[in-house]
């Protein structure tokens, strides 16, 4: 397994190991951070900081299948800190336009509605519906039980539906 090889190499101080782990997980971590934060620059910061933490904790990391969960958990904590700063500074999120105007408008509306949800609903939606993560892993990242995760996921979808109801009807 590639992850195991790089983690063992990292523990031995191989300078290529961090690069290998970045190749392996950099994109997913960036995507997750971007979805949590809504802007590229902060997502890049959070990604870099996540891999710095990997380096700092290299002696303790084990390739027992929990590394990816740990990595996402680190990113999540960094994102939460950044979101707190954003609340103070009110930074605007990047808007992503693509496809037909109508479809692009719907996507932006959905993204905005998602961003407006309370964190406890938004996080399960990002992990399960956007990152396509299994409920068990998402629950571990959020440090909650699987039933609690599912409950938040379902309530989150309903809350999102309630925010989007007018838009969805117009686009049907």
């Amino acid at each position, binding site marked *: 397994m590639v992850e195991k090889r790089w983690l063992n190499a990292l523990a031995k101080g191989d300078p290529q190991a*961090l690069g290998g782990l970045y190749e392996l997980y*950099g994109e997913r971590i*960036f995507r997750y951070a971007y979805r949590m934060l809504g802007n590229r620059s902060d997502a890049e910061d959070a990604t*870099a900081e996540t891999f710095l933490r990997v380096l700092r904790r290299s002696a303790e990391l084990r390739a027992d299948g929990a590394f990816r969960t740990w990595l996402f958990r680190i990113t999540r904590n960094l994102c939460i800190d950044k979101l707190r700063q954003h609340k103070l500074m009110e930074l605007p999120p990047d808007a992503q336009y*693509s496809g037909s105007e109508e479809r692009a408008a719907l996507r932006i509306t959905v993204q905005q509605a998602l961003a407006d949800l309370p964190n406890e609903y938004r996080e399960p*939606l990002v992990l399960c519906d956007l990152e396509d993560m299994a409920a068990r892993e998402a629950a571990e990242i959020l440090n909650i039980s699987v039933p609690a995760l599912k409950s938040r996921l379902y309530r989150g*979808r309903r809350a999102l539906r309630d925010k*989007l109801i007018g838009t969805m009807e117009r686009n049907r």
Partner: protein
Amino acid sequence: MNNELYRKLVDMYAGGELPEELEQELRGRALSDSGLAIEMQSLSDTVDALRAIPDPEFTEESYQRVLMRLYARGADIRPTGPTPTHLQYYLPIQG
């Protein structure tokens, strides 16, 4: 079936988690229950719209900027992939 059970089934239906047999049964019931039909439709439309949000693009520039941030913080990181040609050289500033 009570309301709470319906609600759970609709939640699972919208997420594509219901076994085929139960999904068929729920669809059948929705034919004679317009409230249930609207609930199923609106919630699965929401999940579809959410899942249709495109992945944020991890561009080459973002990839390199993350690397630069790591270098700047003193990390000895050596990417295993090749550096793209346009980022290999710094051109002198003219003017």
